């Protein structure tokens, strides 16, 4: 028996659990027990390791041997492989179809090596249900530093000079938001973490919360200290039960250790966090709607002009609202300094971006990459290209608020600003790859169907406009398109974008406008030639 400790990591993200990770874990515990190896092998359940598509994952540390698609029947072989004369279990390794051989270590797998996992550094490596694991990797040291060595102003300065921007989609400078909230007058202030990840095709907030909940809590506590708040809320999406469960555990452990509650770390600063479960409304991603939802109302955005939520927010008090990933970055910035943070990324988009890479791509999962990386690198290097020899058609970024970009933009750097220049956006971080078999008109119809369902109905352009656009798109995909439909879509799209009350309506036409801009011939083929070039629309078969 080797005298080195082998931590065996069993991924317990939602994806791996659905593939049977819990059964893999219990077989592993049984087997280790049976062989009396408990001394030398430590088994750990972790959050999402990122490569969900290959789950359930078992990783043998410290080497980082990566076993994928593991079933309970593989466990005897895995434990045998830990003995001194150990060999890798070839059938469970990642097989690289380019170099035509298996790759044992995950750092060498293309899906991982182009990534820069900093915010996600703990996801897949620590047990999210054990605060000691987070402490062992330096957790809550940033909070110590912030509270004992820094004034609120210094913290805000640090966040501002890091260049961190809101990672929920809007990209508003985080430091400026914090400053405005700190300066706002109010006997009480609140910190809210927006974990209402409503974009279809995005799961990076869920994975961050499931894999490393304490980093988000730590960021929120530091924010509370900086702006002078005593209460924090995590507005969590109802469809994410595992994230909520792990957050509850994390909050109670943080209270036990004195990181939450009264007189945090003996500083006299009080702060506590509650979880508020959302009830399923995409529009609640908008700040005023989210606030109304916590207040127990229908989540309908307030019309402009209105004061910023950082000045008049929850129950009329100054409220700091940031996304999960934004908060998760804060401990890193405080611990390593703004200079370190700002050294990565592009001129106006610093740090890293976390994406859910999905769709017609060989490797899909959760990835973290430096801002400014090219779409091509994401899709072809990390994602491994398009499966089954199909051709790339488009990449959809930004979910229902974003757009579909054709191949000519694959060399475009991905950051907050570049994608918007071509009609799309980084958004909250969904990247969906479309291949030749996907009809972009149908995809535009799909997104309009979503935004039309999710429109809160309060303002006419969004309520009626999205419905009219959807009707036209449904007509086209049903072989009932009429000449003039494209112009009508453009006209309606422009009106909805210009006159809707909130970002949901303002951005709802983007999937339609970009597909017309870049794939107009496909619309024309449907309408004029009665053909669906990709063969996806049933009415044309």
């Amino acid at each position, binding site marked *: 028996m080797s005298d080195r400790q082998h931590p065996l990591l069993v991924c317990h993200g939602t994806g791996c*659990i659905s593939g049977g990770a819990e059964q893999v874990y219990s077989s592993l515990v049984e087997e280790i027990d049976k062989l009396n190896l408990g001394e030398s092998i430590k088994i750990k359940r972790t959050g999402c390791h990122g490569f969900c598509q290959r789950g359930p994952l078992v990783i043998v540390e410290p080497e980082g041997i990566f076993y994928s698609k593991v079933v309970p029947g593989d466990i005897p072989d895995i434990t045998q492989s830990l003995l001194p004369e150990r060999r890798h279990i070839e059938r469970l390794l990642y097989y690289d179809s380019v170099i035509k051989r298996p790759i044992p270590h995950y750092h060498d797998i293309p899906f991982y090596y182009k990534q820069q996992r900093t915010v996600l550094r703990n996801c897949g490596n620590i047990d999210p249900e054990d605060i000691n694991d987070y402490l062992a990797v330096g957790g809550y040291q940033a909070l110590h530093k912030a509270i004992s060595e820094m004034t609120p102003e210094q913290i805000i300065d640090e966040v501002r000079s890091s260049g961190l921007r809101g990672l929920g989609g809007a990209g508003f400078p985080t430091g400026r938001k914090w400053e405005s909230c700190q300066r706002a007058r109010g006997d009480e202030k609140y910190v809210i973490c927006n974990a209402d990840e409503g974009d279809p095709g*995005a799961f990076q907030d869920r994975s961050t919360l499931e894999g490393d909940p304490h980093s988000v809590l730590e960021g929120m506590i530091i924010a509370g200290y900086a702006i002078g708040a005593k209460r924090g809320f995590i507005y969590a999406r109802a469809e994410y039960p595992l994230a909520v469960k792990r957050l509850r555990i994390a909050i109670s452990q943080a209270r036990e250790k004195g990181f939450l509650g009264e007189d945090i770390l003996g500083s006299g600063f009080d702060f506590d966090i509650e979880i508020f*479960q959302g009830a399923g409304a*995409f529009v609640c991603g908008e700040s005023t709607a989210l606030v109304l*939802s916590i207040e*127990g109302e229908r989540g309908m955005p307030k019309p402009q002009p209105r004061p910023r939520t950082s000045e008049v927010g929850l129950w009329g008090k100054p409220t700091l609202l940031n996304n999960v990933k934004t908060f998760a970055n804060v401990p890193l910035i405080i611990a390593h300094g703004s200079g370190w943070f700002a050294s990565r990324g592009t001129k106006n988009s610093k740090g890293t971006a976390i994406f859910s890479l*999905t769709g017609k791509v060989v490797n899909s999962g*959760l990835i973290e990459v430096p801002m400014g990386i090219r779409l091509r690198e994401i899709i072809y290097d990390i994602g491994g290209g398009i499966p089954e020899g199909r051709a790339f058609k488009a990449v959809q970024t930004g979910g229902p608020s974003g757009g579909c970009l054709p191949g000519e933009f694959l060399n475009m750097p991905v950051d907050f600003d570049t994608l918007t220049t071509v009609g799309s956006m980084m958004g909250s971080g969904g990247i969906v790859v479309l291949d030749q078999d996907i009809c972009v008109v149908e995809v535009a119809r799909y997104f309009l169907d979503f935004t039309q369902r999710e429109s809160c109905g309060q303002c006419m352009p969004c309520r009626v406009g999205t419905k009219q656009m959807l009707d036209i798109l449904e007509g086209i995909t049903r072989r009932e398109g009429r000449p003039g439909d494209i112009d009508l879509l453009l006209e309606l799209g422009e009106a909805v974008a210009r006159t809707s009350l909130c970002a949901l309506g303002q951005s709802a036409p983007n999937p339609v406008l970009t597909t017309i801009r870049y794939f107009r011939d496909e619309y024309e083929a449907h309408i004029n030639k009665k053909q669906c070039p990709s063969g996806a629309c049933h009415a044309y078969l």
Partner: protein
Amino acid sequence: MDKIEEGLLRGILSFYHGNRSDLIPILLEVQAKFSYLPEETTQQIASFLNITEGELHSVASFYNQFRLTPVGRHRLTVCRGTACHIHGAPQILSELEKAVGIKEGETTPDLEYTLESVACIGCCALAPCMKVNDNVHGEMTPQKTGELFSVLNTGEQGVR
């Protein structure tokens, strides 16, 4: 509502102060216990929070989570997220509609099955996926869907 249910509801309400902001948490908790929001409970919740039933319903009908009719013992939820959509979620849904004999949003009269869809469950790398109650099943195909349903239907153990 029978005595037990009334006790359940009272138990839930006893943890709240009766503030307006308690509304959504109460509704979620009641629904978790009762599987939907029975009319008798909404009357009592409204009076507990000192709001009209109309106000309560305006909130309950706004959010996708809330249901005002009973759900089946097996809740089949098909994800219609983007990745699932392009990997064939519509076929999974229609396969289920055929197998169960109800349309999306409906419940079988014997309260065995409810068929619904959800905007995204965030398991996009395993698209297309669906849930049976709270358990996610990934990489579905029409064939796997049919098999899953027949296993559920024969009441075989092991399917969660």
